[in-house]
């Protein structure tokens, strides 16, 4: 490869190279890092975040942004947890535990997430309010709704616990393959990633999403139903946050109204580091997954080598800025 081709390869695949370099650097410093346990932990921690980021990134690709993601995760975590308590738990959320079949709280939580998405989508598409403000509104409202629900008698804002094992298994259980086990949460994230890859690349909705973000005017002229497309995208994103919320509740075996706080910014950071353009029209599913993994590796790996959490924040911030600077260069060069 000639010099320019090497540099082109580097900029095109910067995100994956960074991930590999990061893992290599941590491993050299602390060889114990390279183990099945670390690998497993990183995947488990990344799983809900990948699902959330895949939703959030769709909105970024339409040249929007969704600030409500984190609060929707919180709301859906609380809703699914409150409906999945063991009847024998001493501090029940409801006086009488509803004792629903396992799938029902899951469906309800996903539907709640989709509903918040629907509201954001309607505001963006028909009230023509910029997504930043529209979702700032739904973010605050969602937190309000979540806290009201969480504060209901007899729960009175007590952390929800005592979740049924059939529910928590999604977060902490694993599929036994004999020679190894694969956590269900990772399988769920992998399946959803695959589905989202299809949505991004193989559906009319996905193509319209890239078209709207790439050139909204041209999308209108091409006869794309921009409003309906945006609403569908916000609904799908909301449903994905719902899945994220359920997995967070299942993984930790409980929920409070502060679950998911700031996740929206983590999701945006991961998507942007993963090559999603904040000006819209660009982004790939593998890139977004790599973006999430980078942040988890930093979190996990730097803790592993004994670096304090405050230093980690500084490194995280630097990575966001550097990643976007590289990204901007990529597009400047093409002009």
């Amino acid at each position: 490869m000639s010099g320019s081709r090497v540099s082109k390869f580097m900029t095109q695949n910067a995100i994956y190279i960074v991930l590999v370099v990061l893992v290599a650097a941590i491993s050299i410093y602390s060889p114990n890092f390279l183990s099945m346990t670390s690998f497993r932990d990183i995947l488990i921690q990344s799983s809900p975040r990948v699902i959330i980021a895949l939703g959030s990134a769709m909105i970024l690709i339409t040249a929007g942004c969704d600030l409500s993601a984190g609060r929707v995760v919180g709301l859906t975590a609380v809703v699914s947890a409150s409906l999945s308590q063991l009847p024998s738990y001493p501090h029940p959320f409801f006086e009488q535990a509803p004792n629903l079949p396992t799938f029902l709280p899951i469906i309800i939580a996903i539907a709640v997430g989709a509903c918040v998405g629907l509201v954001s989508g309607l505001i963006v598409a028909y009230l023509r309010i910029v997504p930043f403000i529209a979702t700032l509104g739904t973010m605050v409202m969602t937190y309000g709704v979540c806290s009201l629900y969480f504060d209901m008698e007899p729960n009175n804002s007590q952390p929800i616990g005592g979740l049924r094992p059939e529910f928590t298994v999604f977060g902490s259980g694993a599929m036994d393959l004999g020679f190894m086990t694969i956590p269900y949460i990772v399988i769920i994230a992998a399946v959803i990633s695959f589905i989202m890859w299809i949505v991004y690349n193989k559906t009319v909705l996905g193509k319209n999403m890239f078209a709207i973000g790439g050139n909204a005017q041209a999308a209108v002229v091409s006869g794309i139903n921009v409003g309906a497309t945006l609403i569908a995208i916000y609904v799908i994103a909301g449903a994905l946050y719902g899945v994220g919320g359920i997995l967070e509740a299942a993984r930790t075996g409980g929920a409070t109204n502060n679950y998911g706080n700031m996740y929206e910014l983590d999701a945006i950071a991961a998507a942007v580091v993963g090559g999603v353009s904040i000006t819209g029209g660009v982004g790939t599913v593998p890139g977004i997954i790599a973006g999430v993994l980078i942040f988890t590796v930093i979190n996990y790996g730097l803790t592993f080598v004994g670096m304090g959490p405050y230093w980690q924040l500084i490194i995280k911030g630097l990575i966001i800025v550097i990643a976007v600077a590289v990204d901007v260069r990529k597009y400047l060069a093409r002009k």
Partner: protein
Amino acid sequence: MSEYILEMQHISKSFPGVKALNDVSLRLRPGSVHALMGENGAGKSTLMKCLFGIYKQDEGQIILDGEKVDITDSRTALGLGISMIHQELYPVLQQTVMENLWLGRFPLKSYGPLKLVDHKKMKADTEALFKEIDVDIDPLELAGNLSVSKLQSIEIAKAVSHHSRIIVMDEPTSSLTSDEVEHLFKIINGLKAKGVAIIYISHKMEEILRISDEVTIMRDGNYIGTWPSDELTTDLIIKRMVGREMTQLFPEKTNVPGEEVLRVENMTSIRDHSFKGVNFSLRKGEVLGIGGLVGAQRTEVIEALFGLRHLADGKIFIHGKEVKIRSPRDAKKHHIALLTEERRATGIFPMLNIVDNNTMACMPKYRNKVGLLNDRLREIDTEEGVSSLRIKTPDTQTRIQSLSGGNQQKVLISRWLNTNPEILLLDEPTRGIDVGAKYEIYTIINRLATQGKSVIMISSEMSELLGMSDRIMVMSNGKMEGILDAKDATEEKIMELATAGLL
């Protein structure tokens, strides 16, 4: 002291593939109004951009007060006393008149070590300035509340405040009422009396003959001549503006217009200064050209046909049946396609590849039974488009932004052909495209008409209208002034109609 305040001598300027200016000269006397005339694309703007240092001329020199000057940017020009009043004004609407006027050079007052904006002085200076050029505007009014005419007065005041001795006005009356034009002329006469020289760019014959002292005419980047206004008439100006040989070649027309496909009655925009009472019809296999000057509202008419603009009144009939077109989706259902004028702004998806760009207007048609896109089929259709329209590209996965303008345009034509349209609306289809690619686009248009597609083509190039159309509708100032049979049409007749509404 030289007789002229400004001499632009033998200016030439080339862009890749185009000679925009070829040995053009302009001599400006102090205290006079000098009109600069020519068709769209004659080179007037390029010449002015050389004066303001936005472009650097390849040959020729600019002489100010008898001395050669080198103008590198519009700041230098301003320093030398040259200002421009643009056709489109961009005031800061949320700020006051005086803040707009002194933007970037607010008077300051020292309060010890602090320097703060001196609003009192700003107001006094503004009032003095307005008195000098005789306009009546409250300096504390918000710019957003003012009419175009008053905003223009502020721009003129700004030029005066810079002690400009040369003021270029680009189509200053294009959005003024006749009373406002009178007021502008009063201001211009006042400036003349102070010795300010004005370069006045306009298409409006009557106005030019009234206000200007001399007229310089340009055509296709060439200098045609300069005459005192009182030796000119409207007819003479038009003849000199358009009197060129047909140099461009057009493919031979093979289409035969058939029955009526589209009829438009009394189409009227909901906006005041847009089109009114437009009537026309379009036949199967016909190319209907729409001519007119910039601002004639031609684009607005066809965008309304495509559902991008709202109608206050009027009826659209397709195959004799009245239809309502409220969105591009409605238009697509009636097999109408639109190639917009601004290819970059409203046409291409720059970051997407040719396949996606080519299929974007009819993506749902590529869905398979389970609702996923059949990429193989999209690829096949795109390859077919690439070969039949002879699109030059390394492959179909290339991002459209890396293609040349002509090839991007062909991809957009291909996009719309995929929707199987009956009526194609083409807005300046060859703008910004080099000569070779133009011919190919002409060939495509002719072929489509021969196949029975109906085409409406807006063009600002006379030769293109005459060479491509079966009939030519000419618009002026939002009104349809007439429809000419292409066989009897001449550039003079088109120009006469195009300027008819501008009295």
